């Protein structure tokens, strides 16, 4: 017990809660054991998961990104209207990813160059992107292109009879694997931890703080844009009014996943577990079938509280 590094305790707690929720579902509802439930968890939460991975990097560096939901909505409607105006889907997706990355980089530059608080800059970013989404188009727009209606739909891995792993779930898993690799095995990833733990020290240790910071927000922008793309695969449409408040779910998932909001400690797989926990709560409430869905918010709130108090307790003990 003493040998366990205290920074892994929140991660263990997250895993435990996740398993407990799943077992609870299986005990209460017979259909919960269906592999479809698990496939749905990954597929339905893919865009949230991808955005949360981006948020993990930002939070690891000690920042915060409130623009996530608005960027996803913007990218969705952007892709939809580009395709509607005759652009090749792949070109539109690449363009969207570039736009998202550039937007993130601009946010990062404002934060870095002018020393502005990330909270305010990304708040401005959120307003801006939400408005721009409506500038692109005021209404939702379906994507009608064979790439979407056939190619993407066929990109599945059969798991059980009539149960397929959808492309969105594959995207999520790929993103988690790549992001974990980036965190553990690249200098950029380690620099993110260093900056989040102590920006000043990182600077004096020769970490390229400026570039890394801009890179982190650019990466978060990229992941948000990717989440936007995945949302178009998921819904085959774009809607400027969608994903309001998604950033809060993403932050909640990151915190529940064991990442310290002050930065410096955290794990991408933990974030995935956090997303799955939020999804499980929602699924449980849907299966229950009669509970006001507002209980979802309350349950997430309670869970957040428990995890934050847990982190606090561990941090307090670590210091003593």
């Amino acid at each position, binding site marked *: 017990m003493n040998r366990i590094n205290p920074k892994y305790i929140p991660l263990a707690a997250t895993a435990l809660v996740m398993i407990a929720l799943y077992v609870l579902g299986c005990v*209460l509802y017979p259909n919960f054991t269906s592999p*479809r*439930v698990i496939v749905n968890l990954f597929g*339905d939460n893919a865009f949230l998961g991808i955005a949360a991975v981006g948020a993990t990097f930002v939070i690891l560096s000690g920042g915060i990104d409130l623009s996530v939901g608005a960027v996803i909505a913007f990218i969705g409607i952007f892709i939809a209207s580009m395709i509607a105006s005759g652009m090749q889907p792949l070109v539109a997706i690449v363009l969207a990813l570039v736009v998202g990355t550039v937007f993130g980089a601009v946010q990062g530059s404002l934060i870095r160059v002018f020393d502005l608080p990330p909270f305010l800059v990304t708040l401005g970013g959120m307003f801006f992107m939400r408005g721009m989404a409506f500038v692109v188009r005021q209404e*939702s727009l379906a994507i009608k292109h064979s790439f979407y209606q056939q190619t993407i739909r066929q990109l599945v891995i059969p798991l059980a009879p*009539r149960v397929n792993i959808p492309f969105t779930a594959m995207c999520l898993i790929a993103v988690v694997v790549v992001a974990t690799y980036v965190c553990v095995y690249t200098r950029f990833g380690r620099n993110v931890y260093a900056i989040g733990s102590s920006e000043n020290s990182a600077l004096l240790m020769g970490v390229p703080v400026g570039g890394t910071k801009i890179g982190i927000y650019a990466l978060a922008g990229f992941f948000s844009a990717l989440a936007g793309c995945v949302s178009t695969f998921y819904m085959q449409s774009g809607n400027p*009014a969608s994903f309001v408040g998604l950033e809060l779910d993403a932050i909640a998932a990151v915190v529940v996943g064991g990442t310290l909001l002050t930065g410096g400690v955290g794990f991408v797989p933990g974030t995935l577990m956090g997303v799955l926990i939020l999804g499980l709560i929602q699924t449980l409430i849907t299966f*229950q*079938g009669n509970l006001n*869905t507002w209980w979802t918010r309350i349950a997430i709130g309670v869970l957040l509280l428990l995890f934050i108090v847990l982190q606090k307790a561990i941090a307090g003990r670590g210091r003593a």
Partner: protein
Amino acid sequence: MKKLILLSSALVVALSGCGKKETSTSEPSGGGGKSVSVGFSQIGAESAWRTANSQSIKDEAQKRGIKLVFSDAQQKQENQIKALRSFIAQNVDVIAFSPVVETGWEPVLQEIKQAGIPVILTDRAVDVSDPSLYATFIGSDFVEEGRRAAQWLADKTGGKAQIAELVGTPGSAPALDRKKGFEEVLAKYPDMKIIKSQSGDFTRAKGKEVMESFLKAPDAKQITALFAHNDDMALGAIQAMEEAGVKPGSEITIVSIDGVKAAFEAMTAGKLNCTVECNPLIGPQLFDSIDAVLAKKDLPRRIVVQEGVFDQSKAAAELPNRKY
């Protein structure tokens, strides 16, 4: 570690408590044979109309002893899609839902089709290329509602009106269709014109705020009529008019859509002129169709909800009947 165990056990207790509640509230009344289960995904609980709609469906399910899995999407399409997919996992017999927006349903509907579950749409339609994705659509004809509102207004004013319009949430089906139907009829009357139009988001607060700004424009005096896409916005606008010293219902003729109780109260008070009913009580019709679908009977593609047009003359008589 102890804390963790405590924490997780607390969660288990909390949620199993919920679980127990479920078994007691939605127990299928023994109707003989295998009980039918229906998954219904509702948009949210954003207005009185919507809650009446939900209640009607819940009541009817209970009356017929059908197990209803009800899910509220909090206005979010992604939540609704999640709910639909979870219905598949739960193996319900029929899925019904009121879509938040028209687009974006194709993939999940395909999946439902593959799972062999029939789908019934309520309230709002969807935009899909394959019509076999749903069995039928029960709902009001929003275009028709718009037409009725325009027709009533034309009859009332003798075809002469300068109209301010409070539009619903941009991009939503009711907002688009009601506007379309309204303008269709207006085209026949050259002296009726929409001179102001802005979104009031279907909410009272926004309706009030937008109306206030209408009334402050230099050409405010020209407004003789108001068309609100729902009652809530009209009620907000009435407040704005009263504050501006404009008499709602006489100086400005007001027509709106929905027919909620508060609208009838406003009509009896002489502040609202007409509401075109948009009936939320679709429970009986919905479950009739579900029975028909399960019995493999053919259904019409479109089932229109019965609704009427009420003006001040009928309001007093109708008011006691209004439950929502």
